[in-house]
C-alpha cells in the first residue's frame, strides 16, 4: 500500500461513504448507476472519466445539489439526504466553472464563505491572511474579482474552500480551461495541500497526469458506473511494465485475432480504430515485434512505451478519456 494512503481502519469513520448511489434524471437518463466507494480520512481520491461518465453528478449528490434517486452517501458520518446541512458544514466545493461574486473583492468573497460556514471573525481574518499568502493573492486581495485572471480566480476559489477548514474538499475538474503553465502551478498548490491540512480530497478529472500525480486511489467511471478502483500504480501494473503499439493499414480486429492465435497478445490487448495496443507481459519487445512482422500484418508504425492510465481506461471502456 502506498505510504501516502491512509486506509480506513476499524476505528476510523470513512470521510466519504457511498453505497449503491444512483441518479436517474427526468427523461430516464441514468447518470450514475449504483456506485460504491469509501474514502479514508486524509486520502486523496480521484474520480476519473470522460465528460458524461457521471463524475459531476456524483459530486452534485455528495454536495447536496443533486438529489439521489437511490442509495446513500455520508460525509464524515452525515447522510447527505437526511442531514444535508451538517454534511455541507464539513465540506467545501471548488466548482468546475468560476462561482464567485465578481463585483466584490477577493477578501469579501473569502469573508462571505467564512461567515456562512460559521467561522468566528477573528479566526477568519487570520485564516484569510494566511491563505492569501499561500495562494499568492495577498497583493490583489482588495481588488474586485472581475479584474482577476483565470488562474487567480481559480486560486481564489481553492483558497475560499479552505477558509472553513473542511473535513472533505471537493475539487470538480479544478484545472479545466486553464493554460498549461497555470495548470501546473495549480497542481503544485493542490499537491501542497496534503502536507498542510488533514482534510480528505475528492477530485474529479479527465486529465490522467493530474490523477496520477495527486491521487492515492482512483475510481475509473464509465457510463455512470465504476469499472475499476485502485491505486494508480496498481492499475498501471495490471498492464505490465511495457506495451507495444501498432498502427495497422487494414483490418485491426483481424490482426489482433491473428496475434492472439499466435500467443503474441493476451486478453488485455485491445484495438481502438487502426491502433492495436498489446501489453507485453513477460515477452520482450524485440521478440514480439519480430513475431508480429512474421505474421505479415500490414503495419504502418510500431512503437514501444510504458503504459499510461489512458491505456487502462481504453482497456476497460474502449474509449479515450480526453479528446
Amino acid at each position: 500500500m502506498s505510504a501516502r494512503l491512509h486506509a480506513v481502519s476499524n476505528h476510523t469513520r470513512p470521510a466519504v461513504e457511498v453505497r449503491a448511489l444512483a441518479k436517474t434524471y427526468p427523461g430516464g437518463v441514468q447518470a450514475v448507476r449504483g456506485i460504491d466507494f469509501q474514502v479514508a480520512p486524509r486520502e486523496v481520491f480521484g474520480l476519473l472519466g470522460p465528460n458524461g461518465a457521471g463524475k459531476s453528478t456524483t459530486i452534485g449528490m455528495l454536495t447536496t445539489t443533486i438529489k439521489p434517486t437511490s442509495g446513500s452517501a455520508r460525509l464524515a458520518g452525515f447522510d447527505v439526504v437526511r442531514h444535508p446541512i451538517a454534511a455541507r458544514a464539513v465540506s467545501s466545493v471548488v466548482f468546475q466553472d468560476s462561482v464567485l461574486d465578481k463585483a466584490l473583492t477577493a477578501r469579501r468573497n473569502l469573508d462571505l464563505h467564512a461567515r456562512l460556514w460559521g467561522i468566528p471573525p477573528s479566526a477568519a481574518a487570520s485564516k484569510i491572511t494566511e491563505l492569501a499568502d499561500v495562494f499568492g493573492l495577498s497583493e490583489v486581495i482588495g481588488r474586485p474579482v472581475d479584474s482577476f485572471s483565470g488562474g487567480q480566480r481559480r486560486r481564489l476559489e481553492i483558497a475560499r474552500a479552505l477558509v472553513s477548514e473542511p473535513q472533505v474538499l471537493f475539487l470538480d475538474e479544478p484545472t479545466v480551461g486553464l493554460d498549461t503553465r497555470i495548470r501546473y502551478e495549480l497542481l503544485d498548490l493542490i499537491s501542497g495541500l496534503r502536507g498542510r491540512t488533514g482534510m480528505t480530497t475528492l477530485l474529479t478529472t479527465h486529465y490522467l497526469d493530474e490523477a496520477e500525480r495527486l491521487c492515492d486511489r482512483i475510481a475509473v467511471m464509465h457510463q455512470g458506473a465504476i469499472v475499476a478502483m485502485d491505486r494508480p500504480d496498481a492499475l498501471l501494473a495490471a498492464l505490465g511494465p511495457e506495451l507495444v503499439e501498432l498502427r495497422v493499414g487494414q483490418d485491426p480486429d483481424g490482426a489482433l485475432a491473428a496475434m492472439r492465435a499466435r500467443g503474441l497478445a493476451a486478453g488485455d490487448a485491445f484495438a481502438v480504430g487502426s491502433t492495436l495496443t498489446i501489453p507485453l507481459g513477460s515477452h520482450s519487445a524485440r521478440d514480439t515485434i519480430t513475431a508480429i512482422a512474421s505474421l505479415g500484418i500490414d503495419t504502418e508504425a510500431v512503437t514501444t512505451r510504458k503504459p499510461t492510465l489512458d491505456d487502462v481506461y481504453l482497456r476497460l471502456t474502449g474509449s479515450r478519456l480526453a479528446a
Partner: protein
Amino acid sequence: MTTITAAPAATPLARPRAPARPSRSAAWATLARRRISLSAHTPREILAPLATPLLFALVIAPALAKIIQATGRGGVDYSTFVIVGTVGLLIPLTCTFAGIGVIVDRAAGARRELLTAPIPRALIVLGNMAVAIGVSLLQVGALMAAGWLRGSHFHATAGGVAWFIAAVLAFTVFMYGLAEILANRIPTQEEYVGLTPVVAILPWFLAGSLFPITALPAWLAWVARALPTTHVLALLRYGVLDRTGAGLHDIWGLTSTTTDAALSLLVLAGWAILITATAIRVFTRSAVN
C-alpha cells in the same frame, strides 16, 4: 480484468458530532449584506426603478391635474392622489429589478457556492428579500419627499403612517416573492425583462392609481378588486391622504373604514405569505436537480 478494490469497511461508530455552523439570523444578515454589496455595485438597480414614478409624480400628474382640474373625493388634489398611487408602480419596478440579481447570481454569480453553505436555503431568498424591502422603503420615502417638495399635502398621523408602512411592507414582500418566482422559472434575463410590463405596469393601471376603480367598467372593477395593487393603493391613501377611506370603500363597501382597511391588509398579508412560501419552494426546487 477489472480491478476494484475498496478501503476496508468501518465498524459502526457513534453518531458524528454536529459541526459548527452559523445561527440562522447571522447567516441571514450575511446574505443580506452580500446583496447590499452587490447592489451597491449596480446603482442602476436602485435608480432606474425610481425614474418613472418620479416622472409620473412630479411632471405627468401635475400636468394632468391642470387639464382635468379635478379634485378627488375627500378634497384630495389630483396631483397628490397620483403621487401616492405611483407607489404602486415604484415597488413592483424595484422588486422586478431586484429579481434580475437572482438571474445574474444563477448565471454568473456565486449561487452554487451559497447552495453548498451549511444554511437553510430559504435564507438565500429571505436575505435578498430583506434588501428589496429596505430599498423599497427608501425609494417610497424619496418619492413622498419629492411630492411634498412639489407641493403635495399629506395628512399624516401616527396611526395613518402605521397603515401606510404596513401596506408598503406587505406589498413589497408580495412583489419580491413574485419576482423571485419568475427569476427562478424563467431561463434568461431577456425573457424576464420582457415580462416586466405585465407584472409591474399593467396591474397598476387597473388598480386605481390614476382614477378610482369605480370609473372602470363594472366587470373590470371586479378584476381590480382582486389585485393586491388595488388594496395597497387604497391603504396608502387611507394612511396619509384620505381618512374617509374612499378607495377602501370602493373595494369592500362596508360601513367601518377600519374594518375595510384591516381586510385589505389581511388580503395583502395573505398574498405576501402565500407568494413567499411559493418563492422559497420554487427556489429550492430549481436549486436541486
